[in-house]
């Protein structure tokens, strides 16, 4: 009897070990591998209005950049400003080397004086010529009378007549001489004025009030005509040249509000708005371009060329069924969602509309509010997959 009990006890112990082991095995066989149900999380489709937004990156640029340089090739004599200086309209920023221009202006001043003296000389000569003409005239008239009285010979009268003509011609020549001297004076005066203008053109002047952004050449540098020595930007005109991926640029237009995050300011966002959308897009990068201006210019100004992230808010769309983009799957050639009904899982092709940056997508056709769709799944789903609805997937923090 005692032996029987002990046998029974041993049997129980053995069963006590083996049964849980068997149970564990069955559990393992059913809960792992292909037989295991796929844990999924579900969400109820809600009717929501979504406010789509566009995201692009751009660089800070100045709308107006003034490149100031000489109009003729030459050497830079001085540059009066440094990068970062604020300048006023008309301020002298630098000067080109005049080389011999000053000497030529001096030479022309002397030439002008000489021309003036020439005019005086010509005027005096004209006086002299006029006196000679008057004398020859009276002589000639007197001899004419004497000839009428036959007190002189015809030859003597002829000689006086000729003298008068010579005096007349001499007078005319002197007058012409005076005109020429006067014109010469005018010419040299104009020439000097021109050179003085050219001299003034060697000064590099600021066309507007602004900020010096580039000092491209230092004194002594030779620059060609048109090459910039100093660049001035208008700080009030700083804006952002934003690039939007063309796939996601629908609805971009002037006047929309925007949030700008310059790279240096990281999490700090500045308000702005779209000033214009460029009519020409970038064909190589496949991006649409737009200019975004700040509502209030930040102080200090972000450097020109700095990268900025721009989020443009689009007007809110009408209320429609909305799902998260993680719900949207592709099965074969169709895009759709997995709809959970009671105990069954069915793939429903849908037509999608607009989406926002938080990943919410409008469903135009195929889904009604209140239906339950799969959001996340542990594995790819197939028709007829066993599934289990859970709050959050194993291994993922809720």
């Amino acid at each position, binding site marked *: 009897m005692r032996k029987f009990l002990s046998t029974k006890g041993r049997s129980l112990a053995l069963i006590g070990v083996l049964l849980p082991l068997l149970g564990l095995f069955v559990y393992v066989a059913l809960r792992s591998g292909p037989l295991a149900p796929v844990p999924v999380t579900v969400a109820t489709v809600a009717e929501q209005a979504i406010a789509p937004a566009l995201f692009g990156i751009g660089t800070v640029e100045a709308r107006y950049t003034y490149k100031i340089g000489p109009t003729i090739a030459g050497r830079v004599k001085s540059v009066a400003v440094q990068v970062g200086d604020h300048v006023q309209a008309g301020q002298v920023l630098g000067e080109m080397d005049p080389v011999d221009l000053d000497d030529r202006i001096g030479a022309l001043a002397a030439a002008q004086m000489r021309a003036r003296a020439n005019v005086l000389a010509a005027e005096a000569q004209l006086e002299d010529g006029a006196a000679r003409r008057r004398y020859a005239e009276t002589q000639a008239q007197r001899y004419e009378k004497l000839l009428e009285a036959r007190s002189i010979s015809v030859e003597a009268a002829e000689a006086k007549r000729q003298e008068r003509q010579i005096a007349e011609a001499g007078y005319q020549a002197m007058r012409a001489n005076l005109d020429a001297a006067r014109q010469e004076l005018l010419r040299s005066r104009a020439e000097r004025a021109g050179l003085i203008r050219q001299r003034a053109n060697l000064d590099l002047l600021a066309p507007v009030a602004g900020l010096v952004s580039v000092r491209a050449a230092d004194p002594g540098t030779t620059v060609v005509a048109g090459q910039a020595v100093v660049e001035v930007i208008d700080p009030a005109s700083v804006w952002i040249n934003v690039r939007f991926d063309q796939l996601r640029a629908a609805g971009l237009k002037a006047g929309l509000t925007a949030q700008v995050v310059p790279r240096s300011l990281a999490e700090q966002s500045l308000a702005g708005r779209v000033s214009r959308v460029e009519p020409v897009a970038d064909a*190589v990068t496949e991006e649409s371009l737009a200019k975004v201006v700040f509502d209030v210019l930040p102080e200090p100004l972000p450097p020109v060329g700095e990268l900025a992230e721009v989020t443009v808010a689009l007007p809110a769309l009408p209320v429609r069924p909305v799902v*998260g983009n993680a719900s949207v799957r592709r099965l074969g050639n169709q895009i759709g969602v997995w709809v959970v009904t009671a105990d069954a899982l069915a793939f429903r092709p849908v037509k999608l509309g607009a989406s926002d940056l938080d990943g919410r997508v409008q469903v135009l056709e195929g889904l009604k509010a209140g239906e339950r769709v799969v959001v996340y799944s542990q594995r790819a789903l197939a028709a007829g997959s066993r599934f289990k609805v859970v709050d959050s997937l194993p291994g*993922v923090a809720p």
Partner: protein
Amino acid sequence: MISLAGRDILHAWGKFVFTGIGLGLLIGVTLTMAGVYRGMVDDARVLLDNSGADLWVVQQDTLGPYAESSSLYDDTWRRILGMDGVARAANITYLTMQVRRVAGQDPRDVRAMVVGVVPGGPGEPGQPGYLVAGRQITRGHYEAVADMASGFALGDRIRIRRNEYRVVGLSRRMVSSGGDPMVFIPLKDAQEAQFFKDNDAIVRQRARTAANPALNRPEVLQAVLASQSVNPFVNAVLVQIKPGFDPEAVAEPIRRWQRLTVYTRAQMEEILVAKLIATSARQIGMFLVILAIVSAAIVAFIIYTLTLGKIREIAVLKLIGTRNRTIAAMILQQALGLGLIGFVVGKVAATFWAPIFPKYVLLEPGDAARGFAAVMVICVLASVLAIRAALEVDPAEAIGG
């Protein structure tokens, strides 16, 4: 009729069960090793599955994009889209690198495969097919979907080369052929990460260019510098074909007219499994074979010694006239029982410790079935040896010595 084997097991059930569990742990190791091997192969396959592609278009005469490097101009996909039978085509870049978490509780870096995808609609080739948390990428820059295996969490900020990215979604089983977790980022950022040099290199390149008198002229220099910092390359174009088309029939015209190399799914699998992971898989395979042989030997010896330990009892049985068949059945049943316990313990153990492995361990039911059959066969063979020893025992030993 009472079971002789059952009575014997009950007689020393503790010894029997613990031997079985020890055996089971050994079988568990063997099953796990098979799982490691299957996991390696599965990593390679899952890479192909996840890319969602039917065809891979790569640089001419390369085994890209996984086994060799390959680079194509990023407008190649348009030409491919025009080919007959092509439903969808998408650019993709792959770059294996260390990805560093910059904001989060513990900054650490993870070896990951950074995948540049066109942030298009769901189901486009290259996109993660399903997520376990968060959402898909919506912005064209600076967002990332990371694989769970990377250890990153939603909202973490990670650094890939020049830029920081915010983790907005988590995927599962999105790994490279080496088992590294994937991190999906927008294509333009990925191109920059892969082809754009670091700042020092750019500055030196500028200096080198400026030092060249032929290039250092006003206006010319700027244009040359600008052209040096473009990166219009991708690693491959993934192609999905229209239903009803034969992949090879779509691939051939692309090879012929676009002068590019195209791989079909079967060819790609051949490249990955037979070329890329061939040696490491063979290494594991070799180890698996040795482990299986050693396990078989140990199982056989255990059963043999277990029987030899009972040799006195068997002699008594023979003395009282028990038939040889009964004794043989007892030994065989015990051996099979031991094998069964061992297999169950092994399977359970392998299933529980498999997820702890850093790389994927795939326990296939087929392997388990094969393992079960092998264990049973080994047990039978081992018990044959033991039965021989038992039947040869002299009944006189029961009373002698």
